[in-house]
């Protein structure tokens, strides 16, 4: 599997997640075991209208989506992996009017579990907004309907 295939799979997967699409989350990069997502700034994710700072909940959604989809970059076949847990540390408030990026990676895959971590940042990677670790359970490709797997893998590949 090459990065173009990974990018295609992850892009189609994120595209099927209604709420991710609703917030405008997009894939910017996908490689082996890693990817980057982008959350555009918008009025609807503001937590505090005075400071116009993004609500932590939207950052959580970005990071949950990043950790959940990076799994695709680490497995040869597409499997839906339910989230077991997510732990987020908020480093600083995100600057208004700027997108937030989430770089996620898979750092360990076992027969049953996939361990991921993710960093949300703005501008350069050094301006960290939040850090996160997420654990996912493997239930096998068969647990996902074939039609959905075909949709994600893109039968034309």
């Amino acid at each position, binding site marked *: 599997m090459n990065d173009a295939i990974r990018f295609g799979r992850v892009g189609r997967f994120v595209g*099927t*997640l*209604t*709420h*991710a699409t*609703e917030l405008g989350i997009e894939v910017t990069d996908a490689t082996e075991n890693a990817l980057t997502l982008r959350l555009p700034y918008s*009025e*609807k*994710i*503001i*937590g*505090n*209208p*005075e400071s116009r700072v*993004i*609500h*932590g*909940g*939207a950052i*959580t*959604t*970005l*990071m*949950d*989506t990043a950790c*959940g989809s990076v799994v695709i970059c680490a497995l040869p076949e597409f499997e*839906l992996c*339910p*989230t*077991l*847990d*997510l*732990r*987020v*540390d*908020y480093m600083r408030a995100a600057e208004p009017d700027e997108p937030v990026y989430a770089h996620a990676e898979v750092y360990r895959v076992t027969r049953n579990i996939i361990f991921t971590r993710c960093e949300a940042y703005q501008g350069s990677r050094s301006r960290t907004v939040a850090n996160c670790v997420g654990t996912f359970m493997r239930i096998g490709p068969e647990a*996902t*309907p074939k039609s*959905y797997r075909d949709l994600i893998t893109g039968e034309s590949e």
Partner: protein
Amino acid sequence: MTSPSILHYTQETGDFSRMLDSIPYARTIGLQCDQFGDDLIFRLPRKKENLGNPILPALHGGVIGGFMEVSAAIYLMMSQESLRMPRIVDFSLDYLRAGLDRESYAECHLTRQGNRVANVMVTAWQKSRQQPIATARAHFIMED
């Protein structure tokens, strides 16, 4: 987030509409809150835009997290005697069951209130309180 007058109004009347209206993200996911005596029950009505995985269909895990996070912050604001704004430090979330395409509920519990830091537990459920879909723990810094 919430002005002193809105907080005061909410504490006096138990009407959360103004407070929820003042938080754009809470409006986006459709958060509601009801007060029963001293207890607060947060509610997330069914909403198509909150779904993630379309095949189950299931709520986006991030929405469940966001729902629990806003709930914890509002709960904490309401439990303070003076106006103190909570700022989240960390958030730890265990997903126990898939959140289905139906109304969800959450309740919070103040585990520990220190001088500057508060620890809040949140439980979210749908069908039955005895079958939570997620539990979470959050730390907040309280700012005067």
